[in-house]
């Protein structure tokens, strides 16, 4: 007669075994899919010329939307960078989301802005919009600045931008992100090359800006970050974009288009209700609602990712800032799971309901819980002296080496496709970082994830982070820490 403990261990071990096997197989498939998707991207690119699209009167227009909250340190350089993107039909909408510093004053002064009456309607509800500004200088005719009351989230600012957008597509980014000059044409390419589906969103990879060199709002030298936390994030981002999202893109099952850089269909975003200002993962939430809208309206939608890095963002340089960021992301994930639970294995939402949402649930949301229970279970078994240590070592080595292998494959795809780093040492150095990631970085991610779930369930709301932005032009002229922006700023999620 077996004890209940026996049945529990039997069930738990088998469940974790099959969970792990499914996860490993899915990673393998994603690696395969992503390689196909990257090759397809290059093939398609080989017969289209960026310049033809950039200067064509037939190219669809794009509104670039960038909410800013207390970004006085970097706002000027970054808006200048946005105004020099390579595309003909585009506008730049900066939303001053009730900044308490001199963000708006700096904008007015630098870009010769004057207050204007602007025909505006709240198609998506936001905090009240106070005033609109346009430049008297024709060189900045693409720029529109919206000054609104603080909405306590990036979502509210973005919604105001979407309301004011005049073009059929909009790119949502952060003013503290540096964009590649060809960002708009690269993001537009999957839309104009698609023959079977209405592409509702496209995204491109984000990378860490921490050790890169920028000049005049443009990247001149890309390096893997030297500080350890952003360096781990670089690996994580490469894995997330080059392996995961590119793989999902091939089978039209992209779960999320990052808030740091994404191009969206304006009309569908508005009809889906825009960004949820209460959400901690407003980008993923919007994608879910856009998918739901398309399924309801029977629109054959598509979401695409491209492998070319188009956006660089400053990662949290300190452990504290990083933990806070990840805690918030975990809260966002839990919130998302609850908000869209109706999609779970719901055939009405097709791939999104049968693949995307369950995958997110089992391998993103549940993963930290499985892991933490696994650790507790191991400790209990160890105390009861019921572990076969040699075999446990084999299984652990298997999990470890497999995760390292996936990271190396992601860096390999990235290197084969773009060779972003200048030296061999940088590329191999980044690969070697993957060997310590599991011991140094992963426990922090796990801790932050569990912390986020506990915070959310206990009703504790984390504030928007107080990440210290250094600004991209401060590497040469560093300001004292006291002068740096210490106010909440928006941070993109891969």
């Amino acid at each position, binding site marked *: 007669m077996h004890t209940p403990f026996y049945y529990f261990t039997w069930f738990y071990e088998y469940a974790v075994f099959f969970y792990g096997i499914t996860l490993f197989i899915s990673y393998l498939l994603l690696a395969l899919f992503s390689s196909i998707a990257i090759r397809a991207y290059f093939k398609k690119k*080989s017969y*289209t010329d960026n310049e033809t699209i950039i200067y064509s009167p*037939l190219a669809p227009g794009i509104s670039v939307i960038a909410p800013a909250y207390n970004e006085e340190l970097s706002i000027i350089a970054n808006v200048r960078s946005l105004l020099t993107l390579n595309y003909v039909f585009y506008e730049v909408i900066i939303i001053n989301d009730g900044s308490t510093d001199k963000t708006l004053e700096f904008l007015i002064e630098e870009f010769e802005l004057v207050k204007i009456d602007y025909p505006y309607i709240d198609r998506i509800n936001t905090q009240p919009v106070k005033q609109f500004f346009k430049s008297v200088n024709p060189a900045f005719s693409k720029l529109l600045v919206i000054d609104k009351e603080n909405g306590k989230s990036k979502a509210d600012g973005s919604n105001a931008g979407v309301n004011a957008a005049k073009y059929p597509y909009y790119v949502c980014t952060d003013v503290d992100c540096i964009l590649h000059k060809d960002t708009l044409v690269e993001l537009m390419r999957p839309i104009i090359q698609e023959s079977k589906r209405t592409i509702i969103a496209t995204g491109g990879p984000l990378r860490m800006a921490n050790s890169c060199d920028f000049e005049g709002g443009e990247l001149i030298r890309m390096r893997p970050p030297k500080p350890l936390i952003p360096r781990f994030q670089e690996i994580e981002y490469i894995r997330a974009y080059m392996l995961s999202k590119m793989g999902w893109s091939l089978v039209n099952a992209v779960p999320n288009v990052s808030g740091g850089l994404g191009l969206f269909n304006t009309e569908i975003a508005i009809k889906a209700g825009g960004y949820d200002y209460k959400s901690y993962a407003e980008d993923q939430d919007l994608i879910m609602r856009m998918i739901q809208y398309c399924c309801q309206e029977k629109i054959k939608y598509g979401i695409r990712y491209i492998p070319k890095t188009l956006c660089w963002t400053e990662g949290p340089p300190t452990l504290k800032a990083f933990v806070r960021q990840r805690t918030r992301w975990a809260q966002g994930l839990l919130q998302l799971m609850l908000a869209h639970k109706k999609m779970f294995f719901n055939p009405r939402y097709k791939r999104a309901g049968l693949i995307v949402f369950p995958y997110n649930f089992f391998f993103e949301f549940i993963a930290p819980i499985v892991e933490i229970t696994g650790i507790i279970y191991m400790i209990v078994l160890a105390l009861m002296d019921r572990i076969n240590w040699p075999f446990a070592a084999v299984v652990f*080595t298997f999990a470890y080496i497999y995760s390292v*292998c996936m990271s190396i494959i992601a860096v390999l795809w990235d290197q084969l496709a773009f060779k972003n780093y200048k030296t061999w040492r940088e590329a191999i150095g980044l690969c070697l970082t993957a060997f310590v990631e599991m011991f140094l970085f992963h426990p922090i991610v796990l801790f932050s994830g569990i912390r986020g779930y506990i915070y959310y369930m206990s009703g504790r709301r984390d504030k928007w982070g107080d990440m210290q932005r250094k600004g991209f032009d401060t590497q040469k002229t560093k300001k004292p820490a006291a002068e740096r922006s210490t106010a909440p700023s928006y941070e993109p999620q891969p």
Partner: protein
Amino acid sequence: MISFISNLIQNFRHQALVIQMSLIVIAACIIVILLGFIIISVSRYRKRVRDRREAKLIPTFDELIYHYISFDQLPISEKEFQTKEGIVQEIDKKYFYRTKNKQLFLDRLIGFKKTFSGDMSEEINELFYDVGLHKFCMSKLSAFARHRKTKGLTEFIALGVPLADVHIIPLTHSRSRAVRTTARHAYIKLSKNNPFTFFDSSKEDLLVWEQIELFQIITTNEHLVIPNFSSWIAHSKNKSIVKFCLRLVEHYHQTEALPSVQRQLDSPEADIRSAAIRCLGNMRNTDYEDKMVRIYYEQNLDCQVDILDALGRIASGRYVDFLVNEFRNGSEFLIRKAASKALMRNLVYDPEEKERVIAEVMEHSSDEQKTMINYYQYPILKFA
């Protein structure tokens, strides 16, 4: 540790299945990791070698191309070669033993083609033939890989060298959309025979990028005889071709095609009506204002906005009352906004009338409407 590993390997057959699988995956992963490092290193090394080679070859190729295309203009003292054939021989013997060099030379040639026009441009084509690159490009057209075919066609298009129909036409029926489309572009750009015939037979929708490429090829090809697009507008069953032709009518300002455009206002397809309205608006022809206003109330929101926009572009001043009415009573924000914009454009040529109408409109307007009128009056702003 070593004894444990050797024990595991030696007793592999007797281990539990999970351990066997784990060991196999561990071994596979180690191989993949090592391969990853090797591939990264080798690919970086190869790129370095390629970059060095290109850095060395590009200035030489540029110099040779420049010498060839400006041979007749160069003073004798600056001539490194006695004849053009000398340049060709130098290129052929010294560099063309490697396919990679051929490709690099071809890319440079295409770069020169984009920069030069007139006689120089013709000289570039001559050099293309003299060094035998036409055979190199032609070999791509018969390659198995579809992207090689597309690349070959793209190169012919970029250089604008004539290509016999016999080579292009089979590719216009390719199963690959990319090959098919590029072949059509090549046909339009390079064929001497009626290049627009595919408009008659094409059943699949033209994608936006195809339209962009076609538009660029058609509008930048000086030797192309532009046909009257009205026949396709009137008879084509392919919606995307009708819409594309409407854009071309607009671009070439083909007033003779306007009756066909006007007939599309009665099309059952909203997006075709919309394209026709935009075309008429951009052509700024006053003859069709009446019809647009007549059908206005039967249209969906997008078409109504397009009609208001078209009336604004035509700016005849004949429909000020209609625009005032729409501005005041339009149920949708977009209607009121488009009407206010069109109204301001219609009043621009008559300052007195403008002052009177604005005063009258402002008197009974809501804050939102006043904002619209004010916005479209700012002289500092450029409105698309």
